[in-house]
């Protein structure tokens, strides 16, 4: 699975066509989802498949299609000087650092964090008997965890999603066409300094 993931990533990077890149990314996501499953996170496997590979990539593809004018694919500008070399060097350095860190155990903490009292002390009602521990990854367990211990981030995330939704609508709206639809006097006054094709 790891190889699959890496391969998909490489392919994504090297694809000339953005659509191809997107499709390879989907493959990468699927591979990762399977790895999640291996790591005893079935909930996330499902979520990854649905949200990421399903919704997000679809969105990406929509936008890519949006820009698929025939001329859009040509790089008329020369590539930036030094970007590839320096970026490559730094990326390699980063990789080495990460590996080194992993190898030294500096990144993986070895100490045991403190135990939240309720989860260990009380047994979930009716789910287990005696000292038996439910295996990792049960959706029920995750749900319990999510709605008790981590309820705050959960709620905040929902707020965030709301904000993002509104923001996206605001950013990408076309004020000129709005004016056209509703009549001139309804068009909001915006000084669009960005107008004009070339940068």
């Amino acid at each position: 699975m790891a190889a699959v993931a890496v391969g998909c990533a490489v392919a994504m990077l090297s694809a000339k066509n953005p659509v191809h890149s997107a499709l390879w990314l989907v493959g990468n996501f699927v591979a990762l989802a399977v790895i999640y499953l291996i790591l005893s996170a079935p909930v996330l496997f499902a979520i990854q498949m649905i949200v990421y590979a399903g919704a997000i990539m679809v969105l990406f593809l929509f936008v890519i299609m949006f820009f698929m004018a025939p001329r859009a694919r040509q790089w008329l500008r020369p590539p930036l000087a030094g970007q590839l070399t320096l970026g490559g060097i730094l990326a390699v350095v980063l990789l080495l650092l990460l590996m080194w860190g992993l190898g030294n155990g500096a990144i993986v903490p070895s100490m045991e964090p403190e135990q939240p009292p309720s989860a260990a002390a009380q047994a979930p009602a009716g789910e287990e008997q005696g000292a038996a521990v439910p295996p990792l990854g049960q959706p029920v367990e995750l749900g319990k965890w999510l709605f008790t211990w981590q309820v705050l981030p959960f709620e905040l995330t929902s707020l965030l999603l709301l904000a993002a939704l509104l923001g996206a609508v605001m950013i990408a709206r076309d004020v000129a066409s709005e004016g056209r639809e509703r009549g001139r006097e309804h068009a909001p006054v915006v000084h669009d300094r960005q107008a004009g094709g070339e940068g």
Partner: protein
Amino acid sequence: MLNYVWLAIAFPLIGAAVNGLFGRYMRSKLVSGVIGCTALGLSFLVAILTWWDYSTQVLTLRDSPFYQVTLWPWIHVAELKLDFVLLVDPLSVVMLLFVTGVSFLIHIYSTGYMAHDEGYSRFFSYLNLFVAMMLILSLGGNGIVMFVGWEGVGLCSYLLIGFWYRNMYNANCGMKAFIVNRIGDFGMLIGMFMLFSYFGTLNFVDIFRAAPVVFSGVDSWVPLAIALFLFLGAIGKSAQMPLHIWLPDAMAGPTPVSALIHAATMVTAGVYMVARLNPVFTAAPTAGFVVALIGVATAFVSASIALTQNDIKRVLAYSTVSQLGFMFLACGVGAYWVAIFHVVTHAFFKACLFLCSGSVIHGMHDEQDTRVMGGLAKYMPWTYATFVISTLAISGIPPLAGFFSKDEILWRVAVWQGQFGPAAGWLWALALITAFMTAFYMGRVTFKTFLGKPRWTAQYVEHHKHPHESRPAMVMPLAVLAGLACVAGFLGMPKWLGGFNVIEPFLAPSTAMAAAAPAEVGGAVAGVPAEHGEEVHQAFITLGSTMATEVAFAVLSVLVGLIGLFVLALPMYTRRFGVTEGLKQRLRPLYLLSFNKWYFDEIYHHAIVIPGTAFAYTCWRFFDLKVVDGIVNGVAWVLGAIGQLIRPLQTGFVRNYALYMLLGAVLFIVFNLFK
């Protein structure tokens, strides 16, 4: 009253403030004049009361004639403790009296003289301020208070000389006075610093008490240096050679200013200072000789210049310089009380002379050149009379005041016993010649101005028929001053005329301190006799030892004055005018030397002013423009260069910025991994 002596300073200060701040809002000019004169009148009253208080308490003050009034603690820094202290002792009482008195009269005079001037209240404001500063100077109990007054009178002198500031010439004269004064102040400050470093205090009383001890414990050059530096300050302030150049040009100011500042008070500040710090001078006999030498040289040179000047005020200015030289001569030989005596009498008759000349100028509609005057006696009788009285006084004709003080000076010089005694003869001779010249040029001025045929008719035809006498406000002070010039001499009569001498014993606690010094002070102390009398005659070796000698000297000086005045000047200037022209031609080099003020100004200009301005110019061109501006511009340039260096980082491309972020992240990880 002794504790309230500061009121004498406060009244003129308030007057100055009121006139200065509110003068322009006063509807009538009279108010400013009244305020100014009243302030001075009150000050004079305080002076009299203080004197009365002091004299009647003299018994209780026997052990300490110095009465200090501490107004407020001022500078307390580490070992430096200086308070604003006023000192009431005989010397300061004398100064207080005559400064306030003469100033009061001059203020009254000014109400008349400046009546048509638009800066009327400004004038009185400055004048009051000046008196306040002069009183601070005279009443100061330590060096720093005195210095406050010292600088203050210099400032007021500048303000008043350049009173009619719209004329550039007047402003320049004011600047010249102030700058030359400052040169002297440098010496004064060094003297003060040395005093402080050796005595640990600048308080006069403490210095007086400690002087014998301190000076016996240091090398002999110490009091000499202190004395010379302090005297440098006096040279600047009292217009002695070589810093006398500012006084004649100070005549650009209004005549009351000349009378007050440059005749009676400010220029005597130098004499006062030397008299005040006389223990220092007596501890350094060489300094005394230097003082006497410069004094007599100044007297001689400036008298010679006065012989040929045509501007009536300039003659009087050089006369002032000359008389100041006499005063310093007296100080130099150790006769401090005589110097102060001459200060007082000179204040009276010189102020009278100046005010008379102001009256003449006023009457002649601002004409100052004696060559176009003449025959004014019958049109300005009061002015004429008082002028003549003062001329007689300055020439040393008894029984007017000048005789007593000037003759006493000549006598003291002649019997000088210090280690430079043998030179006394030369000093005396020069002084005598100077006295002769004094009589001569004063007679010349008198006769040219008031007697003889009128030479001013041409320019007067269209204005009036003839000049007229001045108004009472101006004439009254003239009369008072002339009267004082008549009687003031009787304060210090010599022994052979009865010995009614009140001024010497009165001043003795302040000026005769050498008598209290232990015998081991210095080697040959300049023999200052504590009393006038037998001691003098005992010490008198070469010139006889009887009172008759003194009388002979007196008669000699009177004769000299009479000859100068009547035998030479009168005929020359009233009847035989041709003589002067002939003399001028035959003695042409001398005439030129005298007329051009011995070329002092020209020498200074070429030796100091021109190199100075060249140096300043060079400093500007090179140092200021290149170095200082270079540094400032250079800093700016460096900053700009740094900006230019870093500028390429701002490419505007997002990917480059992402690269920078990655770089930062990598560095961060490295740092955290390996720390």
